[in-house]
């Protein structure tokens, strides 16, 4: 780990001031990803600005019946919060599918959105990586790319977003509240992360000097017909090969509203409005699920080792939609896939 200066922000405005004063500075909250990356010399901040004591830990109801979640709420507190368990169980399930109990106790909501890819070439400073060192090339394109992206990739980068929470937030239509020097703004979670394009070193649309203050959930929680299914190489404490967040509103056997998002397959949580539209107004049957899966996976391309993900994703989408339809969501403890 490199030497760095340490500052403790007294409030959000102070954090923004400190960021502006030192272009090499980074914010730290839970630190679970940043400290690891610093140990690997992937991140070398000149200063850490400790925001962990800022008062951004509340979960409050919004005027329209949604929830506003402070950026520093620990992942575990969010997953086990009664309002999340009751009204947004898809989000609780996705959070509990990720990391370990210890890491969930440390990691913040804002930090979860800011965590970086776990592509091994990004971590390995002896290999070229456009995300770590722009212009150096991508070692994964023709390397060990079994875990890599099949959607939204570029010739510069095929890394995936590692977040489970983000997949559920994308499906639920969450908003990200941001504060900066020029004021506050709010963007959709699906616009927060970027595709790699020719600038894979820029993960998100958070501007320099900006800070996430909260994540907002719209009122609709899909608390009855939902499931989060995560497929991985071991049953717990592993990143997704493919994960699916599915949420439905059913009237009888007809789908009146549908949400579908994928993890482990792209540089950001992958959602397709077209796939969701194809489910709306249709019967909740395998035929229609298959059509939605095809639309969600439209344009999927494989590299040398990750071709299996396309069919795996298709089957996982079908299974997750069936779990959501029958109101038998995937358990994150009892691993049998119903």
């Amino acid at each position, binding site marked *: 780990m490199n030497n760095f200066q340490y500052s403790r922000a007294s409030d959000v405005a102070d954090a923004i001031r400190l960021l502006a004063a030192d272009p090499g500075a980074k914010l*730290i909250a839970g630190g679970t990803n940043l400290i690891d990356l610093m140990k690997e010399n992937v991140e070398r901040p000149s200063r850490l600005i400790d925001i962990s004591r800022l008062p951004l830990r509340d979960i409050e109801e919004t005027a329209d019946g949604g929830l506003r979640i402070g950026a520093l709420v620990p992942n575990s507190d969010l997953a086990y919060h009664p309002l999340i368990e009751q009204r947004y169980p898809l989000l609780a399930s996705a959070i509990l599918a990720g990391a370990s109990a210890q890491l969930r106790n*440390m990691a913040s909501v804002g930090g979860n959105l800011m965590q970086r890819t776990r592509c091994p070439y990004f971590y390995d400073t002896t290999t070229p990586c456009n995300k770590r060192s722009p212009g150096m090339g991508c070692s994964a394109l023709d390397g060990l790319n079994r875990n890599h992206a099949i959607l939204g990739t570029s010739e510069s980068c095929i890394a995936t977003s590692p977040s489970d929470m983000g997949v559920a937030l994308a499906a639920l239509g969450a908003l990200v509240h941001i504060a900066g020097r020029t004021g506050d703004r709010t963007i959709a979670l699906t616009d927060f992360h970027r595709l790699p394009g020719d600038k894979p070193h820029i993960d998100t649309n958070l501007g320099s000097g900006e800070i996430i203050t909260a994540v907002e959930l719209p009122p609709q929680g899909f608390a009855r017909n939902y499931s989060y299914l995560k497929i991985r190489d071991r049953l717990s*404490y592993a990143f997704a090969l493919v994960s699916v967040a599915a949420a439905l509103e059913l009237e009888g056997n007809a789908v009146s509203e549908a949400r579908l998002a994928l993890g482990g397959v792209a540089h950001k949580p992958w959602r397709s409005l077209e796939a969701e539209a194809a489910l709306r107004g249709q019967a909740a049957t395998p035929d229609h699920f298959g059509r939605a899966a095809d639309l969600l996976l439209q344009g999927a391309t494989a590299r040398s080792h990750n071709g299996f993900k396309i069919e795996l994703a298709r089957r996982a989408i079908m299974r997750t939609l069936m779990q959501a339809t029958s109101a038998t969501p995937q358990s994150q403890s009892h691993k049998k896939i119903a």
Partner: protein
Amino acid sequence: MADLTDQIPERISINLVVNGVRRTLEVVPWTTLLDALRDRLELTGTKKGCDHGQCGACTVLIDGRRVNSCLTLAVMKDGAEITTIEGLAKDGTLHPLQQAFIDHDAFQCGYCTPGQICSAAGLLAEGRARDADEIRELMSGNLCRCGAYPNIVAAIEQAMSRS
């Protein structure tokens, strides 16, 4: 060679309550809580396994919550209460989890054991595990290379049934 002296930050004074004892120490900002416990406070019960948050050997309780001390900067925990494996026994009596690990032979080499027991203490406090599947899932952040998992789960079930 450039003079780096003025680039090296001052040590920062922090207070920790470790196993009920107030400790004051000066640390450079990049000192992890794990290194502070082991190298500065000589509490070597907490183990350094992977040092990357993947194995759980460094698990301690901060203000009652289990965390990976290897991914925690000591300077950020100024004022916190830390409980390590050395702080679990009370008045010469082993913590019920320590006794259960002995009763069930829940280890072989023992290197992961302090982290397993601190993690299990956090698990019991959280109250979220109700059966063996849930224990397994919520203990998945603690690896045991000897493969003592069945006995670890049995030990935690015993401590849970008696708590």
